[in-house]
């Protein structure tokens, strides 16, 4: 969109000229030392294109020269518009377009990801139920077959009756000696169609997962970077939106997904739960148990920061993950071995928090289902 724009370096061949370049919504002004206009490169008077310029400049956040002309006066001086009224009308049109574009990206996007996450959950529920039916149904004809889930569905969809298992298949022996009755042709067709549907649900599931992985990078790049695409998407979905996630204190982020334990905590003043879905993050999962609490706190605070950065600026900021890694390193170094004391003999305060941990672990299972 900006191919027409010539950089000052191209004109003057200098690099120190850079700070005397003032990029405005209607063109680039080249300034002299006093901040007066030396030259200007104007854009076309096309609102849609100018709106794209506004959005782009807002993202780039180029440095602005301290001494610079007023941009309204500059627009008239450079001949971009003739009258003040003309300036007002065009700028308003351009800014409204720019803002619409920005907000539709800012919050329509997280909702499409949330829909996708919820669709995954729907598929999981259905696929489990259908899988159990297939297991029971097909099991009557081939009880020795030791398969479930996707593997079973693929098997039935490929071979149908066990008599179709080819002789070079590792299950050929089992299939030919099965004590299950033969499948009639009609039954085989029906069972196969049923299995085909389960397979296609698994395909769709993978398709959606890919979609989430790919879009998280543009919708919430920092959250995706820190939490991973699927955990990040899940946090957004449980919070309700990226905006809500961004508004939560990190202590809440830490327990998102531990709902039952959390409600119990709020209702009965039971110790607050420590296991939200962020415990599925490999940083925590792979850590020794005595480091997990500390890592969870750090991770939650970084996730919180990442979602705020995504919500308010949308710009990737690698310092968030770098800082997280540094902090994890410190935690690992500071806590190399498990605490010595027997859990039972801990001080009362500690004992209490341990109980909380156990309680919430129990609840986690409930929360996950």
């Amino acid at each position, binding site marked *: 969109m900006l191919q027409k724009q010539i950089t000052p370096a191209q004109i003057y061949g200098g690099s120190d000229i850079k700070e005397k370049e003032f990029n405005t919504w209607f063109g680039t002004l080249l300034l002299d030392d006093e901040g007066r206009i030396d030259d200007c490169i104007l854009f076309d008077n096309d609102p849609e294109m100018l709106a794209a310029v506004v959005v782009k400049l*807002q993202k780039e956040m180029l440095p602005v020269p301290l001494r610079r002309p007023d941009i309204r006066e500059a627009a008239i001086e450079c001949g971009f518009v003739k009258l003040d009224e003309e300036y007002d009308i065009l700028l308003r049109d351009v800014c409204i377009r720019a*803002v619409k574009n920005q*907000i539709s990206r800012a919050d329509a996007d997280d909702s499409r990801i949330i829909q996708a996450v919820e669709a995954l959950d729907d598929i999981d529920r259905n696929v489990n139920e259908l899988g159990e039916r297939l297991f029971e149904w097909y099991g009557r004809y081939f009880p020795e077959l030791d398969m479930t889930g996707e593997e079973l569905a693929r098997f039935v969809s490929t071979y149908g009756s066990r008599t179709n298992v080819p002789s070079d298949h590792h299950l050929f022996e089992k299939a030919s000696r099965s004590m299950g009755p033969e499948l009639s042709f009609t039954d085989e067709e029906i069972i196969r169609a049923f299995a085909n549907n389960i397979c296609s649900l698994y395909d769709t599931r993978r398709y959606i997962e890919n979609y989430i992985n790919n879009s998280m990078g543009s919708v919430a790049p920092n959250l995706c970077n820190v939490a991973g695409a699927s955990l990040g998407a899940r946090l957004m979905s449980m919070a309700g939106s990226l905006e809500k996630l961004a508004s939560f204190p990190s202590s809440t982020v830490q327990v998102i997904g531990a709902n039952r334990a959390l409600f119990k905590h709020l209702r009965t003043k039971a110790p607050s739960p420590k296991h939200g879905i962020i415990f599925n993050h490999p940083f925590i999962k792979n850590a020794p148990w005595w480091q997990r609490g500390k890592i969870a706190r750090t991770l939650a605070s970084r996730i919180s920061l990442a979602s705020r950065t995504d919500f308010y600026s949308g710009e990737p900021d690698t310092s968030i993950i770098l800082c997280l890694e540094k902090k994890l390193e410190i935690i690992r170094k500071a806590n190399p071995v498990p605490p010595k004391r027997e859990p039972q003999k801990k001080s009362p305060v500690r004992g209490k928090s341990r109980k909380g941990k156990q309680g919430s672990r129990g609840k986690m299972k409930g929360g996950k289902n």
Partner: protein
Amino acid sequence: MLVRELYSGAYELDSGDRKMLATRNMMPGMSVYGERLIIEEDIEYRLWDPGRSKLGSMLLKKFDIPIEQDSTVLYLGAASGTTVSHVSDMLMDGLVYALEFSPRTMRDLVQLCEIRPNIIPIFADANKPHSYAHIVEKADVIFQDIAQPNQAEIAAINSKYFLGEEGYLMLSIKSRSIDTIANPRKVFREELAKLQNDFSIEFEVLDRKELAPFHEDHLGVLAKRFMG
């Protein structure tokens, strides 16, 4: 009903038993956020609830409001435009740049901008004036209503970027967004000191008053850019 102009474009309607703040409706027949419309001698006014607007309460607190008919105003923290709509009414011949960074509220604000010709919406973070310096011109007045811990800093950097030499800064300071437990008076004193000393721009504070009973724990400030 008795109509008296308090400031350019802002009126007091006196019904005998009650005085009400209002602006002259630039878009007759249209209420923006459910406020009442009152027609008096063929002129339509929109009632302005000072309890819902820092600027409205500053008017009633008799601040010497520097907004003129033809001013250029930069409004930081426009939210969905409740107050901005009244500023828009006051600016018969001026322009208000309305800045807000929450997408949800921006959605409402854009709708208002589409109806009114003198509001320019900007979706940006007030901490980063260089991200909108390519849009905003020199302003006669900067009005800031942003509940952030670094309110003074935000006001200072925006003034540095956009406030004209003779420009005014109007600021609403919310003590609880700076320190939840400290005595508001102490917070106000510190924020004013910050504003006057901490940044590479100088202000002369012309007026300051607490905005109670309209807004508890808020201080209104009117300052002028100080040219040494």
